[in-house]
């Protein structure tokens, strides 16, 4: 049994054990910590230079079906390692911050979401990549419907919206993946193996590549709340229980981006480069950044604001994908990691506030810094990271993405093309982030509360997840090479394919 298989199945077994009666909190925190340590250990021993194009470390494969050829195959490269790190970090924080009096089901759901995300990131077989992601979606739906915030009817409506939306997106995605398998399988046997599918990708006609890529872009895109398929996301995060919001917004949503980077772009290089797809993607991501930026500014509650900002920030990652060169793509991955950590931290804080204050409306709150200075500091980390302040992780990713779009191969100084114009417009999004984040910060932590609402700092134990996430933001922000060096070869497949 390989290490990666253990990482995937440990949370599932733990969830089962909790269901059968093991103490919920102790079990889930222990397992999350073990997973974090295993992935950390794998990362320490990971030598990006030794991996060739399209190769994975810690590989193991078990055949489950001969034709179509499906194997439970796992493997890790720089990108999946970074996402696995993100998953284990956020899982640890998410299960730790669940209050002691909460039901065991909160732990079970968190562990299952975590297992699904890990399975999706670590599998190298399309069937299991897709399957594990779906596994993670079920507890998300159920937790929103059953234990979400707000009154019963409202959260039901939100849960249905996300179920139907993501269900449809998954089906579109499935159609695209099926087309991929049917078109790229060599010989008489259909295969779901990523490496095997890559052999034939160069010879696929451009027109076929384009429509499959576009299908995948819609499917994966809707899972990441790509504009205009984003309307499920904000209400879902605002309604979801804190741990679920942390895990979905922080980790699971990255699956769509991961899918584009891991599956769609390397296997369909011509599709990714087609001008009409490029332009469509640029338009959609501008929708994410500018439209959702304005929407975010107009929110009057912290949870709504964070949820919408999370949709907005996806635009920058899509921008990296649209640029498609090594720098921008690496930047996109760093940004995925950074956004995951910062939004998880934000939702953890938001959950504490909701719990202690009972309301999250900016107009009612104020002066929280007086009684909760520590909370104010940690919130500052999350808010500044989200804006993209230098020294915090998001900055590194955003700069790489922006710089990548001005790569000399992509433009000539005489004439800006669509990509550069998009970047210029997208930069205004940073201003919008600053507007809403700083305004929220000022309203929440300074001034005086309308009705004398105040809250205390978290106890020493409850500070652990918050400090952990804030520290990660700072470390990666100050030396982003810790992440970037892991990806030395992650892009060779994409580059070979002409990106």
């Amino acid at each position, binding site marked *: 049994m390989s290490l990666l298989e253990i990482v995937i199945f440990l949370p599932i077994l733990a969830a089962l054990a909790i269901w059968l009666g093991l103490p919920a909190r102790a079990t889930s925190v222990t397992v999350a910590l073990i997973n974090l340590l295993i992935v950390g250990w794998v990362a320490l021993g990971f030598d990006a230079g030794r991996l060739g194009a399209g190769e994975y470390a810690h590989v193991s494969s078990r055949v489950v*079906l*001969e034709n179509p050829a499906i194997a*439970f195959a796992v493997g890790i490269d720089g990108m999946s390692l970074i996402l696995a790190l993100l998953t284990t970090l956020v899982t640890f924080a998410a299960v730790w911050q669940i209050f002691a009096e909460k039901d065991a089901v909160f732990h079970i759901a968190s562990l299952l979401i975590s297992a699904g995300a890990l399975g999706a990131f670590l599998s190298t077989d399309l069937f299991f990549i*897709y399957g594990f992601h*779906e*596994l993670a979606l079920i507890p998300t739906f159920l937790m929103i419907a*059953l234990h979400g915030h707000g009154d019963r009817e409202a959260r039901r409506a939100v*849960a249905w919206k996300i179920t139907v939306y993501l269900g449809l997106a998954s*089906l579109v995605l499935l159609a695209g993946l099926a087309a991929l398998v049917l078109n790229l399988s060599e010989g008489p046997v*259909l295969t779901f193996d990523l490496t095997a599918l890559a052999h034939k990708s160069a010879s696929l006609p451009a027109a076929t590549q384009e429509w499959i890529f576009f299908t995948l872009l819609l499917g994966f895109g809707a899972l990441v709340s790509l504009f205009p398929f984003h309307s499920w996301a904000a209400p879902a995060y605002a309604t979801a229980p804190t741990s679920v919001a942390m895990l979905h917004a922080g980790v699971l949503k990255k699956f769509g981006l991961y899918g584009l980077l891991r599956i769609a772009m390397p296997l369909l290089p011509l599709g990714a480069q087609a001008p009409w797809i490029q332009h469509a993607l640029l338009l959609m991501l501008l929708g994410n950044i500018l439209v959702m930026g304005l929407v975010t500014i107009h929110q009057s509650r912290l949870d709504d604001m964070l949820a919408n900002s999370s949709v907005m920030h996806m635009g920058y990652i899509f921008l990296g994908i649209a640029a498609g060169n090594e720098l921008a793509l690496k930047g996109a991955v760093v940004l995925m990691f950074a956004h995951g950590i910062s939004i998880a931290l934000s939702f953890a804080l938001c959950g504490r506030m909701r719990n202690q204050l009972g309301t999250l409306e900016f107009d009612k709150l104020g002066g929280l810094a007086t009684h909760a200075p520590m909370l104010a500091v940690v919130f500052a980390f999350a808010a500044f990271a989200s804006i993209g302040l230098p020294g915090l992780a998001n900055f590194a990713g955003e700069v790489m993405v922006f710089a990548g779009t001005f790569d000399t191969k992509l433009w000539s100084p005489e004439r800006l093309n669509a990509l550069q114009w998009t970047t210029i417009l997208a930069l205004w999004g940073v201003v919008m982030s600053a507007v809403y984040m700083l305004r929220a910060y000022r309203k929440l932590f300074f001034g005086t509360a309308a009705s004398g609402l105040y809250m205390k700092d978290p106890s020493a134990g409850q500070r652990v997840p918050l400090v952990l996430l804030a520290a990660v933001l700072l470390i990666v922000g100050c030396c982003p090479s810790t992440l970037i060096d892991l990806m030395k070869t992650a892009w060779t497949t994409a580059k070979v394919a002409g990106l």
Partner: protein
Amino acid sequence: MSVFSIEVLLALLGLVIIAAAAFLPQVSDRVLAWTGIAGCGGALLLLTVASKALPAFVAPFYSLDSLALFYKGFALVITALVLWLVTESEKTLGGYSLDGRFGELIGLPLIVCTGMMWMASAKDLVTVFVTLELVTVSFYVLVAYTRKSALSLEAGVKYLILGAAATGVLIYGSAWVYGATGSLTFEGIAAAVKNPAVDKSVLLFGSVFLLAGVGFKVAAAPFHMWVPDVYQGASTPVTTFLSVGSKASGFIVLTRVIDALLADGSRVAGEVTGMLLISAAITILLGSLPAIFQTSVKRLLAYSSISHAGFLLLALASGAPVRLDLSSGGIVAFYLATYLPMTVLAFFVLCVARRHGIGDSLDEIKGLGRRSPLLAFLLTIAMASLAGLPLTAGFLGKMLVFIAAVDHGYWGVIGCAVVGAAAGFYYYFKVILAIYTNEGSAEEPLRLSIASQAIATSLAIVIVFLGIYPRPLQMALVSSTGAHVNAQK
């Protein structure tokens, strides 16, 4: 001992049980039911060891390819499970009969099983008719069995009248096909469809009726109207049997008929495929869209069963996919094998709930999650699998169907299938959501015997196991349908 004699013995066992229920009051129904289950288990064992050689007198009308063997095993498994559901519904059923006994409900399924096993071996339309009637007539009795319930009587009448009409249509179609091809055997029909001397319009006319007759049995639209009322009215074990057993036996016949009509070089291939595709598309839509609005879980499962029939039709219409080892018949068998555990599990939960006075409406099953965490968890797995979520058996069946359809480029029908599957997410999740909703429900826990817990849990394990590791099932089917495909070529 030949396989053929197993079926004879099974029918005898059925008769003995019915007689025992009538004349031996000291033998309880529970004992009879477990005798029946043991009989099915023994038959399954015999099926694997019995000699595959056939006595000369049955050879002309009885084939024993491995697809037939697969469906025979399938019939035995579902019959045993239905008898188990009968024991689970003991209290409920006893209340509906005059003397508190329900021996016929134990004996008749064995006779139905005989019919289904024989049908799997049918080589010609006459055998199909005889065995189909053996199954259907037994079902007339089974559906109306709980005769104190008005719903059950209504279901019985509906099933009787529509079923009889369908039988007439089937016979009528067979006669026309015979008139066109001069043959009642599938081999003869397969040879005749290539023959330019055969009158194509007559053959088509017959085929339409033939397909309509079988389409009724498998609940294919537009012959699906009876399904919701009959499923709702019949007692839950019988509904399960209808939903899995009757459907499977319809599909084995349909597989044989379609294989014959779509044989290589067939002159009616285009029309038959077209009919199947249209029927598949409307079956999926008319199954899954009304399911959204159901408030009774049993009716919801009835519509879901229609929708699943649509997916199976789509698989049949796709013929032998270009790059799968499985023929269309193999995909259908695979799909049905995955459909069995999830459907039985879902109906089992309804049986247990019924025993505790919980009806089958979505409102009444609320709080199940607290009253029996195990049942709620098992039902969740069953529903996830019915919805076709990955890593459950249901996904693989749907995936194979989609691959086969995409390989042939049936985009319109695929579109309908996507809509149907998306609607499935909604209505299956509605059930999951209901069982985990806790408000205003009784607290009394549901009691389950250890044996029931074990059987139900193993069904759930089968669902997940097949969803993650389908290789054993595929191996069994490839070896069986491989021979089947080669025989055709």
